[in-house]
């Protein structure tokens, strides 16, 4: 397999770190070299956060650069737009259609851009619009948005479903395994026809 680069973007506190850890574990169990670069500290306080996951034969830089990402997993619409220039032309862009206003918008100093997903669709072919917040609510825990998104992404890889489930079981706390697997399945089933 050629190297795969996955960019995970969102707002600090949305669970991007857990997502990257699950993804890292999946790559490791698939026998690939993998590097995951995370953001800690100040940005985790509601700022724009990005996590890089790179897997393949041999990975050097842990960073993904502009026009390099094969997949962008976006936990929030505005963050999708902010990082879209990191996508390859034929990248898969998976967007949770949730809106979280940043402080400049909240206080009226800036406008939240309109029609973000439409704009991205006009420029990139493989865009999946996911109502992840609703699905997380359906799973029973609103905090599982991240795992719903992993479920969607799992459909666009060749990696076996069991490998994903095992990684989730290994990564989340025991008392949250059940709800997270439910969330994963919701995302996985939602995306069944998205990548054909």
């Amino acid at each position, binding site marked *: 397999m050629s190297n795969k680069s996955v960019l995970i973007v969102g707002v600090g506190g949305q669970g991007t770190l857990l997502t990257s850890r699950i993804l890292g574990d999946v790559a490791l169990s698939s026998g690939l070299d993998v590097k995951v670069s*995370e953001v800690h500290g100040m940005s985790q306080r*509601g*700022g724009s956060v990005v996590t890089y996951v790179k897997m393949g034969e041999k990975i050097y830089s842990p960073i993904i650069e502009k026009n390099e990402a094969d997949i962008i997993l976006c936990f929030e619409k505005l963050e999708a737009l902010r990082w879209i220039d990191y996508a390859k032309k034929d990248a898969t862009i998976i967007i949770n259609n949730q809106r979280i206003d940043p402080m400049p918008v909240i206080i009226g100093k800036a406008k939240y851009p309109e029609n973000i997903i439409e704009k991205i669709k006009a420029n990139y072919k493989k865009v999946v619009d996911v109502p992840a917040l609703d699905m997380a609510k359906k799973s029973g825990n609103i905090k599982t948005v991240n795992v719903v998104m992993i479920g969607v992404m799992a459909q666009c890889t060749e990696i076996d479903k069991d490998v994903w489930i095992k990684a989730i079981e290994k990564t989340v706390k025991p008392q949250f395994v059940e709800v997270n697997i439910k969330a994963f399945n919701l995302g996985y089933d939602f995306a069944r026809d998205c990548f054909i």
Partner: protein
Amino acid sequence: MKKLMLGNEAIARGVYEAGATVATAYPGTPSTEITETIAKYDEIYSEWAPNEKVALEVAIGASIGGARAVTAMKHVGLNVAADPLFTASYTGVNGGLVIFVADDPGMHSSQNEQDTRIIARGAKVPVIEPSDSRECKDYTKEAFRVSEEFDTPVIVRLSTRVSHSQGIVELEDRENYELKPYVKNPAKYVMMPAMARRRHFSVEERMAKLREYSEETLLNRIEWGDKKIGVITSGIAYQYAREAFGDVSYLKLGMVYPLPEKLIKEFASKVETLYIIEELEPFIENQCRKMGLKVTGKDKLPVIGEYSAGLIREKILGVTSDKLNDIQDEVPARPPVLCAGCPHRATFYVLKKLKLTVSGDIGCYTLGALAPLESVDTTICMGASIGVAHGLEKARGKEQSKKTVAVIGDSTFIHSGITGLIDMVYNNCSGTVIILDNSITGMTGHQHNPTTGYNIKGEPAKQVDLVKLCQAVGVERVKVCDPFNLKEFEHVVKEEVAADELSVIIAQRSCALLKHVKFGPILTINQDKCTKCRMCMRLGCPAIVDRGDHVEINPTQCAGCDLCPKVCRFNAIEKAGGRDE
């Protein structure tokens, strides 16, 4: 067994495998997880120290006592620990002593971008620099061997991208390291002038031997490829360079101080064009230029910020990436904010309302500087809020202290605020210090500290009583108040700022992210009652959103902390009922 580990976790694993038994640190991004991970190994004694200076002193003591010992800190922490460092360089070690220092190029979570190699050179302490998680573990073990063989503390220099990137690590067994005997040796460990003069000779002899070692060690390796281009590099910059240049020749330095001059000359003589790729200061580059080598480095690359493969491609190879879209014209920034439910929000709301000059400090509450709270006037370093407020008064007179407060977190106060407060007491300052006591070290991710009542393993520990501590150093006016009692808190601040004597206000309320903190139902704005006066917007809460024609509360963001109803004069903010989870 193979495991995916953060650089910091791999460091901790290396410490474990090397048989170390003492670890002590003060938290600081991006170094914190080193000590947090070490704390999970029961074979190693671990602790949070009040600050980096104490931590290094404890590690020095453990080393003199014959143990392999470590301390970890961020780059600015090394400034605090510089005093013991420079003299531990003279005393040398008994058991191996390794100091992990994590630089933060790009300042993801720091107040400056200093380069640890320069301090290390000043202290004449060798520096080892890994470039990924695997090297983090392997180089840590080598660092102990270097420390003991050459009788020196060793700095392992990290950077944000090495510390916070995960890579694959092969786990090995723990070495059975036997405690070395402790032998009284004043000529080595009592650094008064007569002894220190002799020890300085030992330091210089050691540096000469380390220069020889640097030529031979496997930490420094040549990877031959196309010899048209040669790249000398180290740390994370090596990974970027590999990606940018591809199959050219590399001299990858794992020991960056002292540098292997012969190896560098040999490498340089065999390549056509020589590049030096290093983040921050031209440390390797200046040495190469001093040796008379013709190199390209900082003449094309910046000394500011992080590097990337793309940056190297652009600046050195002149390759830029195409722009694939034009839809990013108006993307508003998303700066970090105080969390919904944060106790500091109330504090800064009041301080702004009273139009006070606020001398700030390091922690989550530094975010009180951003809009719309825009309350903080200065932030310099850990503990500086108090000294700066004192200086403001001494420069501008007593009147200034009646419109100034210093704000400092509980952990930061213990770290280095207490000495500033003693200065205020001793030198007759009439200022006001607000200790933001949120019962935890917040920004670095919830570490215990001497005021929380728990140790690094979460076991009950002696708790420093902040009220008694302030009283004991001579502060007569000490008030404790919950900032969420907005009216009372405002009254207390007004009173203490106006007072002619020095006062301390302890603003006590737990961090909203702590597990034991439970809020009520989330809130909603009753649009019939709302007059759109936008008083609630002044709180800068990420859950309260201005939609132009109306203001609303985002239910997925609201913590239910109940602060906003207190600023609404029309009782328009109501409980929305059931929580979503």
